[in-house]
């Protein structure tokens, strides 16, 4: 499923097929992601509310992210530099959601 990108945080530099020699650089600059994990406690309505109110995504995107967490066990909710992702994770913990950060695709 396509993960909606939060509007305020552009995704990393897109990899190009025309310039394969840049792949190594791109890979070294892999951004970090904030991952929210499914748990049996938090209500679906509350999780969608948190995504909507904290990340400022539309109700539709918040619902889609919430369902992705619920159905697949996790969802990437933000992408960016490590410091920004740590702030998001701390905020998610403040809401009581289970969240971690990691290198993208790690």
């Amino acid at each position, binding site marked *: 499923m396509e993960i909606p990108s939060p509007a305020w945080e552009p995704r990393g530099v897109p990899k190009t097929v025309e310039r394969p020699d840049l792949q190594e650089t791109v890979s070294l600059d892999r951004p970090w992601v904030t991952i929210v994990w499914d748990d*049996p*406690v*938090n*209500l679906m*309505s*509350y999780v969608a*509310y948190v995504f909507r109110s904290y990340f400022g995504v539309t109700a539709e995107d918040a619902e889609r992210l919430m369902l992705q967490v619920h159905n697949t066990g996790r969802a990437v909710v933000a992408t960016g530099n490590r410091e920004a992702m*740590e702030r998001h*994770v*701390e905020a998610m*913990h*403040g*809401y*009581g959601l*289970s*969240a*971690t*950060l*990691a290198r993208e695709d790690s």
Partner: protein
Amino acid sequence: MQFEPAAEGRVSAHFELVEVGLLRLATSQLVEMLEASDASAPAEAADPALKRLLPDAYHDDPEAAAEFRRFTAGDLLDRKVLNAKVVLATLGDEPLDPISDEPDESLLQDDYDEAPLAIVLDPPDVQSWLRTLTDLRLTLAERLDIAPDGVPRRDSEDAPFLHDVYEWLGMVQESLVYAIDV
């Protein structure tokens, strides 16, 4: 108990006194637990509930997780305590323990006092409530050993009561989310 949107971004609900007492009791115990905890070492904390309230920020990097915890756990715990105290403040000055052996005489003598209590929350109160209700449910879920499919595995004498409280807190939270979702 059903939260409804009210004027100026507020929400309101009527709580039965027994509900107020229950929420105050649970929230007071949460404050006690949080204040008794050691923010610097929750990873080693014996209480799994506290571990769930302060989860790891890195799954595969214990060192980074420990460092993150060192920088954030204290603030996070402080905010959780503050939120719980906001909830207690909005619940008014009713007796802390309604399940005491001594019935409150004013409740017996004055019919008016038995009427449900009107709870009105402004937007910052709502944020504290949402977070505290979550912390209460996470804590109860640990006590009940809620399985990934949502079924409690604990089979103690008080488990059915705790599970009722857990479900009721969920109802309160859902009602609150719907009331502000306009």
